[in-house]
């Protein structure tokens, strides 16, 4: 009874829209080429999916410094715990392997795909296709994979070969075989007992005298969003209040942790001299970018979709939270 009712509903829908699936269940609508084109962003190792357009190493240098270097370092060396992009050749079989684009990544297509879909970190899918070609070319150049006159486009990019490609192989586990032994399975005289290093575990939640403060770990969702590190003053200006959302979206990635020399929100000492320069200067640096002694502030934090006013509000929020 119920089944036939469902079929009846499907038949009505078919008659009304005319665009439902002709599959066994008759559920869903045809995905049009226009819909698919907007979402079909993936690039494959043979270059399938690469769009028209092009970009050079030279163009990539400026874009990289403006949009990428604050986290990945001017030469791809990485800042803090953000990913290192360049170097690491010859380290993969050592005790401290450094897995970079040049030393590890098997396909150049992955670089284009990933930069386009997920970078810059605070503003994904904001780059034009030409910009993605340029930045991809520059990252390959930082890794000595292409020369400084390389121009990336659909044809040239698909031909780039990555040095580490041959060193990947398909999972061959199970690779170890333990026996289900019950008696005298190991020699206790050979045991070396290795204990943990003191102080690295946030244990404040269960060890009263662990020496690690309970607030050393981020134990709830608001902490995990970085709110705890950005204490809000009770009375903020309207601009600063509006700027909180911009900060959360576009600024906290660096200003929460202090990446690339970024002054941390709430760090009064770190902000004192900066605030003395006046809001006009701070706004100018935030909007147009700034190369300081300790680090680099990319224009609008690398997120050019922000309006000048949004950036000013975010600056107001950071300043008022750090006085």
């Amino acid at each position, binding site marked *: 009874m119920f089944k036939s009712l469902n079929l009846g509903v499907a038949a009505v829908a078919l008659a009304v829209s005319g665009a439902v*699936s002709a599959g066994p*269940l008759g*559920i*869903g*609508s*045809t*995905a049009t080429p226009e819909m*698919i084109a907007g*979402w*079909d962003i*993936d690039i*494959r*190792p043979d270059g399938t999916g690469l769009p028209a357009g092009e970009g050079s190493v030279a163009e990539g240098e400026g874009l990289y410094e403006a949009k990428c270097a604050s986290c990945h370092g001017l030469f791809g060396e990485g800042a*803090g*715990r*953000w990913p290192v992009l360049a170097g690491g050749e010859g380290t*993969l*079989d050592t005790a401290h*392997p450094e*897995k970079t684009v040049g030393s*590890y*990544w098997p396909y150049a297509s*992955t670089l284009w*795909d*990933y930069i386009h*879909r*997920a970078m810059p970190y605070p503003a*994904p899918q904001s780059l034009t296709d030409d910009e993605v070609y340029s930045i991809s070319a520059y990252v390959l150049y930082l890794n000595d994979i292409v020369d400084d006159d390389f121009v990336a486009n659909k044809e040239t990019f698909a031909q780039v070969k990555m040095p580490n490609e041959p060193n*990947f*192989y*398909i*999972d061959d586990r*199970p*690779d*170890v075989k*333990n*026996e*289900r*032994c*019950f008696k005298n*399975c*190991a020699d206790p005289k050979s*045991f*070396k007992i*290795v*204990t*943990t290093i003191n102080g*690295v*575990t*946030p*244990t404040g939640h*269960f060890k*009263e005298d662990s020496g690690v403060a309970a607030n050393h*770990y*981020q134990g*709830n969702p608001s902490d995990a*969003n970085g709110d705890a590190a950005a204490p809000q003053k009770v009375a903020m200006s309207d601009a600063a209040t509006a700027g909180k959302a911009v900060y959360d979206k576009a600024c*906290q*990635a660096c200003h*929460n942790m202090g990446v690339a020399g970024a002054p941390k929100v709430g760090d009064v000492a770190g902000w004192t001299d900066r605030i003395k320069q006046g809001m006009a200067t701070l706004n100018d640096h935030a909007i147009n970018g700034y190369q300081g002694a300790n680090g680099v502030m990319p224009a609008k934090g690398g997120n050019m979709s922000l309006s000048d006013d949004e950036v000013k509000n975010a600056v107001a929020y950071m300043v008022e939270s750090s006085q």
Partner: protein
Amino acid sequence: MTKLYEPSLPKLMEAIATEAKGMRGMDRRNFLKGGIAAVAGLSSVQMIPKANASANLPPNLPEWQSYLGRGVVAKPYGEPSEFEDLQRRTVPWLTADAASSISMTPLQDLEGIITPSGVVFERYHGGIPNVNPDQHRLIIHGLVERPLVLTMDDLKRMPSVSEIRFIECPANGGMEWRGAQMEALQFTHGMLSCCEWTGVKLSTLLDEVGVKPEGKWILAEGADASGMSRSIPLEKALDDTIIAWGQNGEALRPEQGYPLRMLNPGWEGNTSVKWLRRLEIGDKPWHHREETSKYTDLMPDGRARRFTWVQETNSVITSPCPENPLTQPGFLEIRGFAWSGRGKIKAVDISFDGGVNWERAELKGLVLSKALTQFSFKTKWNGQPWLLQSRAIDETGYVQPTLKQLRDERGGWSIYHKNSIHTWNVTESGDVFNVQIS
């Protein structure tokens, strides 16, 4: 209300502190928290709590029995008791930013195989998107006869399944490859949860679009800021992959992919793409960032394994553990979880001497394929030190390996897929420490 006594605030605090002496760990913390909260509430409600906790114990009438409690729908969506402290936790130094980080499930506090939705471990690569389900679509295209766009209503009309399955990050235990590091079960094994998932089998969806003969791989893509993407072979999709909208009896939590996620049972959690917006059928894998740069296993010779999908058989003792020390001698039920990405758990063994001798534990409760499985061993503890271990065997006959076996094969910097036998050092005092035997 009869006031038993009305001490001054300092005296009350002193009484609380005295009572707290002699309590351990969580009991002491909870008691102090409750006592101090009660003191803080004094001025507003003018209720005098009984400072002495024993006032609630037999033969006295418990304070909470002396007046009416909360009525129905006071909390339309309920929450744990205020005396509980069930929390996801993270290790702040692990990653650069909270929007691309991980938190761990408090396995040490779980009762049974279902992980409450609120404490399922989190892993984001670009934060949690706030997806409006009415405006969310799943597009299926590529090497198919009928490319489809599906609404949430469309998907929920399809024949559905509900399965209890674990999800585990392949980096679970990854901080311990080089040596013992984390002094807490939540951080050594907590990138692991088990829920009931409800959705449509991916095979049903693939029938609906009609996969062309040359279609062998599926790209799954999320609607988050990272545009998470993974290549899934057609064999897995036709076997047991679920496109899920339900979790533990309600809609998926935003943290787990609301309103729609992929679930690849038994496989590394990253393949179970959240906030799923697109499935493309192709002839070859895509080799995207999370299956090349990340989630590949570097071997000592500098080469790397790719497509290391299966989470191999693993187990851990959850009580005792560093968070659950032994507080008194006598009867003890050793408890823990075992799980295998290849199927059901067949058996679990316990060793008290670091793996020299082993005894059989019992499995208890539901024993389901690719789900957390509880084990139990009843014994007595009389203050003797133990090197306590568990060893799981799954239905394929795979025996959970020793750490030495894994290191001999894979070196020490593999990051992922560390499923070795774990050792807790139970000391004479009952405290429990994470150690490795090499």
